[in-house]
């Protein structure tokens, strides 16, 4: 891929030629390799080097057109600018996105610790070893049908015709292991684990193996659960996935589109138990995927979303911030219509609960480890969810795996009925969060 300076030069030259006075570009180049294995043998290796750029052009009437292209040489960029210019004639007439007022502000000086990629044989050997370790862990673990080890180098940039220039490089490695059991007369069960770090050398493969192994074995002795109302404990991953599914609660663009459970007047209202405080923190030390600027070039930052149960801030793009009289928060993705999305959650207990709760002493509590099929079972516009899950029924610290069951409820009720937030945080790829106790939810198992 050409350098950012090359692209800036191409864009400037083409824009001048096309009579375009105002434009910006956001782009990324990715170089990645991933491997899968099957019973000790390589199954598929994938490698990719790809790039894409999105250009925005403002025409003489101030209307905006965009085009995305994978062709980032001078000719490709010129075609993209030309197409965007053509599209601008049909661009929105109201609430047109503009450059972020913070596109040239200082960004965080974050040590990203780039780690160079390793060769494919090392990736394969690492994954084959991990697969074998899982297969050896228990006679019932018959296969690891879903597995993968990937490494990725990423270069991203933002520039605009007013002089903004941003660029950063990142490296990542990830592993996932999802094992499946087979036992005579019993249904197959499965469970998995994922880990992420900046490179293979720092990836905690052993922890991934251990977690996948423990979870898989824990689901062998499964039993159906009678349908009913249960006290529920969400794992970090489960709670964060639910919170994220309903992120329209604090997404300023969704609110302005009237496709949210909140309104502009919701700021300051009590939307959750006073126990709950939630930040979105792209720069959190545990966020391996930390980015220092968003798609509009706005610096990212830590934003309090819910403070002691009160909705304290929305996540903004430059455009939503302007409309709602706020500051951009570094959550924008560039586009004809700029979208807003969270980066990395940090959930903490706002205050001590009257009495700590513990799975070691609680009775008849459903511990939800992982929610499934969120794309199908969440109605974000209504607040409702009905989701299959992996988890256990816990009595006095003893956990028994639950055969297929669903949990259903309303996110607003869930947030209000949080009973306890444990002190010990868990680190997940999507954020940092302790286990969260919720008073009562409907579980459907055996009718």
């Amino acid at each position, binding site marked *: 891929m050409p350098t950012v300076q090359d692209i800036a030069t191409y864009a400037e030259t083409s824009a001048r030629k096309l009579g375009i006075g105002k434009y910006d570009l956001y782009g990324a180049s990715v170089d990645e390799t991933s491997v899968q294995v099957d019973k000790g043998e390589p199954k598929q290796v994938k*490698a990719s080097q790809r790039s894409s750029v999105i250009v925005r052009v403002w025409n003489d009437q101030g209307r905006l057109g965009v085009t*995305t292209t994978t062709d980032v040489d001078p000719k490709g960029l010129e075609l993209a600018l030309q*197409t965007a210019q053509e599209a601008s004639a*049909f661009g929105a007439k109201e609430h047109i996105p503009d450059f972020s007022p913070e596109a040239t502000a200082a960004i965080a000086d974050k040590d990203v610790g780039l780690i160079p990629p390793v060769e494919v044989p090392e990736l394969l050997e690492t994954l084959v070893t991990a697969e074998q370790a899982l297969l050896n862990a228990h006679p019932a673990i018959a296969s690891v049908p*879903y597995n993968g080890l990937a490494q990725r180098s990423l270069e991203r940039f933002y520039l605009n015709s007013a002089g903004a220039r941003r660029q950063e490089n990142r490296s990542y490695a990830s592993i996932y292991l999802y094992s499946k059991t087979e036992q005579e007369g019993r249904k197959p069960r499965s469970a998995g684990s994922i880990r992420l770090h900046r490179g293979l050398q720092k990836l905690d493969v052993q922890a991934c193996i251990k977690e996948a192994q423990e979870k898989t074995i824990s689901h062998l002795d499964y039993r159906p659960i009678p349908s009913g109302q249960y006290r529920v404990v969400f794992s970090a991953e489960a709670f964060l996935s639910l919170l994220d599914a309903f992120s329209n609660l604090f997404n300023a663009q969704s609110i302005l589109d009237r*496709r949210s459970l909140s309104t502009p007047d919701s700021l300051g209202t009590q939307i959750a138990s006073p126990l709950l405080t939630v930040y979105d923190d792209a720069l959190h030390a545990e966020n391996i995927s930390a980015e220092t600027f968003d798609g509009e070039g706005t610096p990212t930052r830590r934003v309090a979303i819910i403070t002691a149960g009160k909705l304290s801030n929305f996540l903004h793009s430059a455009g939503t911030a302007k409309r709602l009289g706020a500051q951009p928060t570094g959550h924008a993705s560039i586009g004809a219509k700029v979208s807003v999305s969270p980066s990395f959650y940090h959930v903490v207990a706002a205050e001590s609960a009257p009495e700590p709760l513990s799975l070691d002493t609680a009775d008849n509590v459903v511990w939800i480890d992982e929610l499934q099929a969120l794309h*199908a079972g969440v109605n974000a516009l209504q607040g409702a969810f009905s989701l*299959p899950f992996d988890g256990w029924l816990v009595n006095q610290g003893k956990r028994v795996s639950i055969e297929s069951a*669903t949990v259903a409820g309303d996110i607003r009720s869930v947030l209000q009925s949080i009973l306890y937030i444990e002190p010990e945080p868990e680190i997940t790829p999507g954020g940092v969060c302790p286990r969260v106790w919720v008073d009562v939810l409907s579980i459907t198992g055996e*009718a």
Partner: protein
Amino acid sequence: MTVATSPTQLLRTQEIPHLSYTATRDRFDDTWEAPLATLLGLGRAAGADLVEFFLEHNHFISCLAEDDAITSLSPRLVTGAGVRVFRGKGDCYVSTNDLSFTGLKVALEKGLAILGLSLPGPHAHIPEINLELMRDYAAANQKEGWLQRCSSMQEMGDVLLAANGVLARQASHIQARRATYFRDWQEVLVAASDGTFARDIRLTQSVGFNLLCADGDHRSSISQRQGDSSDPNFLRQWDYETTANGIAESAGKMLYADYVESGNYPIIMANQFGGVIFHEACGHLLETTQIERGTTPFIDKKGEKIAHESLTAWDEGRSPQEFGTLDMDDEGMPTQRTLLIENGVLKNFLSDRAGALRTGHPRTGSGRRQNYTYAAASRMRNTYIAPGDYSLEELFASVDKGIYCKKMGGGSVGPTGQFNFAVDEAYLIENGQITKPLKGATLIGEAKEIMQKISMCSQDLGLAPGFCGSISGSIYVTVGQPHLKVDSITVGGR
């Protein structure tokens, strides 16, 4: 692409750097034969068992109307290629945006290196790869002018705004209304060292509404989408009056609906998008990718009864205009009609090239991928349950207390065959009659069990467009079925 010389059949590797292939950026035609044949030969000379190139141009545009304004018009121009190298039963896939000869050669070399292969020395002969005479489905089926005949940006905006205006008049308690359209024009070229050389143009379009209604704490949201795979006039012919009327009525009924009470019920599933149950609960489990992983309970059941005898099911890519229709798959194989289940007996699996290699099940023209960044995998096309002999009245009359699932949402199937999907519009059935609307239902079950419980199929087969996400990305598919009865299924609710 213009070629300086006709392909040299006994090229030496040392001559390759001096070849002057000059790529055109705009079209895949038979001038690509020479450079691709050279590269394929190079891959074979390095020791690969089979090499395949997939080249793609893509012109995509989406348009969004919210209330009475166009708020997004987003073109996307994509050029890319992927090379897949097979050696034994292993393979690797390398993708790139660089379609120059050098760029493709770099991708090939990378793929070879991953499999422990390297290009032969400077004096080696490159074996001749005799590509077939290009099978050009685009030219044969008059697709060349499709892109130019599609709606302009202006027309997209005009139609969507008019449609949203109609919806505003039809619905009540509107909180937000959206009309969406996209057009996905894709030109592909496939060349493989087994001689495959084929080109196609695909035109996939979709248009629909999303309506959110609210009255105090009562909310309902209904979406409706239509799709097409071959008609440049598709958007112009969209009957948005009828569609708007339908979703306005549905949203109105669901606005004050009670939440469903969880439990086991007999259900009647509507035709068209009700077919998602078969797509998730069975279709995915008949893909050879699932056999390779050992994640399908049907792995050794070919020729055996896996479903109720009332059930016959197809997967095919031939129905004119359906969303999952293709002239050829993404490995250059003509698509076909594949009988999956006949009267409850498993007849065939869906297989791509790698699936055939690793499982022995013959290719079915089912190798599909979202784009050049993915290797093809066995995927569904238009998948549906065949109509049966019952009338709709007979289905309803057989249910004392159950649920009518009129409109399905999305769903998924897990690695153990466990599936789930949401119901967007449901009604209680009491004594064979619909009595009240219900919301919040999710259907869950095991594929093996549910297939035995589909006991009655009516005569009214209906198809609907959908999107299927899996190992090779998100692809366009059709789901479908007649109205059918499932004797018992677990319904998750409040």
